């Protein structure tokens, strides 16, 4: 069953057609990679899923429910989380606080006036936040201010924040960009483990082909705003269209 169903999505910025008749179908429980050269419209496509952009035409359905017209926080509350290309974290707060906020948002919903509770005495939130930080290997950095983290750590922090919400669909925009080889491999392991243990569906934009082919069960190739191929990984590698549009230049 497909959890995310995207049909005929178009988006233009002025004269630039960033997305043209994009169709995409993400199967529940799978990792679906979206690849394509820079400027192909990959990030723009994700923006259309999370309420950041509204497509000019087309439909985006999540679990059979249209996401268009919903506010960003409503979309998130239905179970869609996103890791951004440039880390979006709470830079002035500590790593620990960064992770606690999505835990609160998950438990308390989009608004809760709990002004007289103490953060200190919220045991379940603390447990969950501690766990999340151990999962991404950041337990030792929990008291650091987020702005002082390295780029790779910021990204892992953002991933922990998204995972803390137990999303049904996790959107990842170049999760390993700016990471060292070892961290990239850790991230591959982490994502594989998330899929196996938590059965979270993922849509991953990725440039690193090592990451793509280690993880993806399905790949969509985007070029100049259109999906040129959507197929299984083994069929993508030798596909002539892909060679031409994407791998061709690199090889």
């Amino acid at each position: 069953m497909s959890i995310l169903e995207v049909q005929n999505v178009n988006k233009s910025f002025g004269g630039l057609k960033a997305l043209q008749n994009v169709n995409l179908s993400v199967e529940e429980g799978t990792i679906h990679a979206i690849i394509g050269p820079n400027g192909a419209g990959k990030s723009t496509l994700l923006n259309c899923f999370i309420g950041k952009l509204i497509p000019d035409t087309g439909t985006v359905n999540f679990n059979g429910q249209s996401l268009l017209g919903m506010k960003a926080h409503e979309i998130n509350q239905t179970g869609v989380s996103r890791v951004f290309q440039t880390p979006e974290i709470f830079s002035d707060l500590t790593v620990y606080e960064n992770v606690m906020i999505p835990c609160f948002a998950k438990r308390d919903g989009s608004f809760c006036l709990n002004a007289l509770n103490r953060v200190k005495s919220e045991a379940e939130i603390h447990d969950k936040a501690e766990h999340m930080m151990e999962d991404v290997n950041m337990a030792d950095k929990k008291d650091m201010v987020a702005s002082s983290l390295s780029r790779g750590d910021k990204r892992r922090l953002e991933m922990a924040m998204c995972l803390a919400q137990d999303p049904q669909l996790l959107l990842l925009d170049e999760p390993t960009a700016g990471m060292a080889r070892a961290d990239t491999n850790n991230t591959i392991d982490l994502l594989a483990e998330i899929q196996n243990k938590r059965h979270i569906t993922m849509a991953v934009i990725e440039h690193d082909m090592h990451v793509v082919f280690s993880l993806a069960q399905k790949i969509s190739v985007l070029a100049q705003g259109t999906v040129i191929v959507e197929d299984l990984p083994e069929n993508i590698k030798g596909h002539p269209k892909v060679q031409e549009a994407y791998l061709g230049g690199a090889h």
Partner: protein
Amino acid sequence: MFDKFQNNDRMLMLFFIFLVLAGPILLAPFGAGYPDLLQRFCIFGIFAIGFNILFGLTGYLSFGHAAFLGVGSYSAVWMFKLLTMNVIPALILAVIIAGLFSLLIGFISLRRSGIYFSILTLAFAQMSFSLAYSVLTPITNGETGLQLTLDDPRILDAANTSGSLPSTNFFGLTMNSTAKFEFFGMVFQFNVGFYFCAVMLILAFYLAMRIFRSPFGLMLKAIKTNQNRLNYTGVNTRPYTLAAFVISGMYAGLAGGLMACTDPLAGAERMQWTASGEVVLMTILGGSGTLLGPVLGAGFIKYFENIFSKINENVLHGWFSFLPDGLEDLIVWVLHFFVGKGWHLTLGLLFMMVVIFLPGGLLQGASHIIDWIRGKKQSSSTQISNPNSMPAE
């Protein structure tokens, strides 16, 4: 010292209670131990603490909070006129009306953020100010201001036969009664009104501390650093900012109500934009986003306003009379711009210095000094690595 407080709210609270309650003794040597000024410290302290819940936590800079102060004063005086001279009903009404009023203004202004939000709040406050002078004169009594009269109904109070205006009280304890003690040639004044305001200040501070430490407070801080991320984390930021706005409006209403309790009249000038600006200065000067900072800023401004605005040219001539006449006149001529009515010039300069050299406010300055003294004793290896952290927060 401040770092320890950070982890120890109980210590901070006890320290604060001690400072406030001992105010009449501690401040007497500085010429600030008289009830009128001490009350103002408390009232503006409350105003600034409330303002800081909005500005310090969420980063939304309101330029219209004096409107809520004014509304609080009017509500309280109406309660004195119609119901009773007891301060409790007056304060309750002041807080409720200011809360409703800020709900309305906040609901509209918070549709925008940044400078547009600031301008909207300023516009609303100025509108309230002009309305108080014009259309609303039946409620505000226009330029004269709202005052008590002998034939006010005061339905809960016994008939007034004394022929003079009754005074505000807390279940019979008159607000303006003062006990004076002389000790080593110094006069210490313990005033009921001050202690009432002091208790309110302590409660206001305690509530602010609870909010700072709550999940709600954490969300407000998150709004300040990255509102987008919070939206994509499933949080609807609008009700949070609105709640913060209303809470700070209610603090302002309480402060306005207390002003009327210590001196039962209300005028529209309390709602003017300069009054809104003053609370911004207090908060930033003391250290926005910190717990103690705004109170410190309020005390600092009110204290120096009191000192500087009392100095006039005669006083200056007295100080510099030892200099030759020409030089004396020159110095007095220069300085007279900075004192008396020109005190705002001094305040402006002080504010600029603080913003440029101590972006974290006076509280940051204080912790720098403490660290520096400590640093002389210890090695610098224990320095905290994070320069952005706010002291005592």
